[in-house]
């Protein structure tokens, strides 16, 4: 079995109407790797994840998934599509996109049901996913009654019920209160311990440091600006400034106001 999950070669994508998407992407993601794509809003992180999930297709270049070309035609083959969807799960940035059914229970059971699993197994997986995330009490709730944090947990539970090999996570900590953010990071770390392949789009450098083995920086020109170990990449202030992931800000240390560079969400300052 191939150890390469995704191989992206010379891939470019543009939105209908010629709007910029992504240019000249080349990278390989191996089994069990934990990757973060760092970039500012609009740099193409979400688009890249949608391409890796076979929801968008490259205008140029190729994407291979599990050793096979990931194309629109290939995904029309139901057995390939089932096998691919079974192995790759995608957490959307906006949980309202992902949670489209009337109740939490139906949401969590949706993917295993579509995979044609037996009713007993679907129920077992859904119940277990709710229990792992500690949201059993939300089972019969409707999505509009949930908080943002609860929606995110339900979205994660719906992926956990499928238990995919590859998790594509688009801004998993966005719009969450600090406690839920920490909870989500813990959850991602537990996936990492289980040997899952994680591909995370994020713009929070501190979170990236914690969860990633490998980091890619997407520039504002929609190209890969750099790749490497997070500890090395995130020390490169010039690179982070160029990618607009770092800025200069005036803030208080103890008494005097100073101005110097620092990454977003630096916890060391007031």
């Amino acid at each position, binding site marked *: 079995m191939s150890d390469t999950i995704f191989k992206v070669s010379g891939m470019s994508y543009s939105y209908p109407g010629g709007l910029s998407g992504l240019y000249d992407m080349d990278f390989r993601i191996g089994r069990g790797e934990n990757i973060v794509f760092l970039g500012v809003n609009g740099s193409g992180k979400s688009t890249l994840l949608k391409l890796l999930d076979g929801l968008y297709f490259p205008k140029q270049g190729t994407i291979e998934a599990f050793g096979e070309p990931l194309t629109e035609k290939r995904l029309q083959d139901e057995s390939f599509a089932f096998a691919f969807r079974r192995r790759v799960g995608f957490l959307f940035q906006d949980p309202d996109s992902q949670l489209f059914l009337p109740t939490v229970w139906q949401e969590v059971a949706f*993917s295993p049901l*579509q995979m044609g699993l037996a009713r007993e197994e679907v129920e077992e997986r859904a119940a277990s996913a709710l229990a792992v995330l500690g949201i059993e009490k939300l089972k019969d709730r*409707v999505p509009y009654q949930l908080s943002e944090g609860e929606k995110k947990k339900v979205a994660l539970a719906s992926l956990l019920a499928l238990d995919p090999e590859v998790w594509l996570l688009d801004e998993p900590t966005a719009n969450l209160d600090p406690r839920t953010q920490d909870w989500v990071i813990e959850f991602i770390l537990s996936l990492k311990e289980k040997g899952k392949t994680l591909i995370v789009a994020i713009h929070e450098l501190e979170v990236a440091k914690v969860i990633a083995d490998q980091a890619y920086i997407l520039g504002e020109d929609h190209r890969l600006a750099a790749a490497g170990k997070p500890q090395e990449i995130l020390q490169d202030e010039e690179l982070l400034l160029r990618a607009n992931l770092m800025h200069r800000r005036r803030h208080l240390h103890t008494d005097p106001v100073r101005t110097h560079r620092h990454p977003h969400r630096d916890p060391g300052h007031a």
Partner: protein
Amino acid sequence: MSRKNFVSKTLAGLTEAIKQAVFAERYARLPGLLQGLDPRGKIITFLALLIATAITRHLAVMALIYLLTVILAAASRIPMLFFMKRVWLFIPLFTGAIALPAIFNVVTPGQPLITLITFSAPFSWGPLHFPATIAITQQGVHGAAIFILRVATSVSLSVLLVLTTQWSRLLQALTALRFPKVAILIFGMTYRYIFLFIKVAEEMFLARTSRTVGPTDTREQQNWLSSRLGFLLTRSYNLSNDVYLAMLSRGWTGNARFLDDFRFTWQDTVWVVFTITFLGTIFFLGGMQ
């Protein structure tokens, strides 16, 4: 106090819509008689009661079915005032307005019940022909009463079914009863996203309220409203795209599969047997003729 403008009226309407939905869901979760029944049996029996209401010509039969809905509402812990308001608030406005002309001998000739005006001779006014005596007729009142009671009973049955069944379970039951699955999925998604867009619309109106001091002219209000309608349309279009991608990503292939956990218990059997006996008795006594 100044007259309420369209912004505050719309805001109140949006808030009320959410409140009503939340209240309705709350009643569906109460441990009442109808709430405990299998939605599949409930849909079929309520449909049978609706058909009986639609075909009977007897006031007494309709009154009996209406009485049954009131008893069922009470047994299902639906507050009577709330239930009555849901049914009777709009009936005088719409059904009553349609039925009102039918009580006069101008529309329904017959035995005069109350004489209103007497003219020297019959006359015509445009296409209308008036008799010398304008009266409310016995036949007219009977016809109007049948019409109003038929509507009231049908609405009561529908309201009762919706109030005592969670929307999601109602949809599941329709799926189990072989309704097209894609249509059910669309209903479910529509209901789910209506609330999201109500919330978005409410926030837009609140944002406007927070930035508006004093009165604004009608043209400005119209411009703002049309721009917000456009924004909401774009937002819903973009969201529908993302929802479709999420469906694909989660294994959707166009063949919907749903999970249900319905259990047909002895209470359901009792309810179905009761409904069959009730309607059968009416039928054999000639109440459906």
